């Protein structure tokens, strides 16, 4: 993949992550600290988190097509880096009470759940697409045999 196209994909990912993080913060916040009040600067936090979470995805960049195994390994590495980034944020952000162990667990768990779900949805979508492609391929080969 060209690096320019890769960067465009990262930009799309950044905005997708911003939305998902906003939803996650709203759900987790309303469960653990429903009465909290924030200033306008807090609204920038999902963007900051999305940017920090997007940076580890650069480990999946490769000029040549990676094999499924190599890509899986890089995705696992990416998850570890994202977890490290998110836990780093949890421990340094004054708005998150990192003294409470469950908050850290919820942050790490949220990242894991979002990561697994996002990849699961993509895999299911690709599997459905592969099924359709196989059906079309069979017809194509019968037609041109």
């Amino acid at each position, binding site marked *: 993949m060209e690096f320019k196209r890769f960067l465009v994909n990262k930009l799309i990912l950044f905005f997708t992550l911003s939305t998902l993080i906003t939803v996650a913060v709203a759900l987790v916040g309303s469960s653990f600290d429903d009465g909290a009040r924030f200033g306008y600067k807090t609204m920038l936090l999902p963007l900051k988190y999305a940017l920090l979470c997007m940076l580890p995805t650069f480990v*999946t960049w490769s000029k040549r097509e*990676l094999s499924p195994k190599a*890509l899986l390994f890089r995705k696992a590495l990416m998850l570890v880096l994202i977890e490290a980034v998110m836990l780093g944020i949890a421990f340094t952000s004054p708005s998150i009470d990192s003294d409470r162990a469950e908050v850290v667990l919820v942050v790490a768990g949220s990242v894991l759940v979002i990561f697994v779900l996002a990849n699961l949805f993509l895999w299911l979508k690709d599997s459905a697409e*592969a099924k359709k492609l*196989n059906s079309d*391929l069979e*017809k*194509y080969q019968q037609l041109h045999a």
Partner: protein
Amino acid sequence: MDVRIEQIGTTGEELVLIRCREITEEVREIEAFVKSRQGSLSCVSEARQYEIAVTDICYIESVDGKTFLYTNDRVYETAYRLYELEELLRSKQFLRISKPMLVNLMKIQSLQPAFNGRFLALLRSGEKVIISRNYVKALKDALKG
């Protein structure tokens, strides 16, 4: 070089004749082009010249500026560039599936998802090749005809 086209009846044998003073590289190229249009390609393997049927080729790959043809059991090198073969073999069920690769659609056994919108093509020869995300749409269009 003068070019003449002579129309013959339905019973006569079709023939492309090149009359030249010397068999130059240009003449070889014209010969190779005519043969490729008829369904065979000139190539080299272990310092020997071969003519292989296009239908025997599983996939074609460009590596470090050289172009290789892969059949079920052998690898051949050809003087053609990948983009030239893409043009020549467009009507012979060959399709670009990644930047350095063309695949014979008739040699694909099945397709599987391979993460990130890519697909893995399992060839009848037992080999596996990656279909880059950028070329998936072209594959869908080709299979639908």
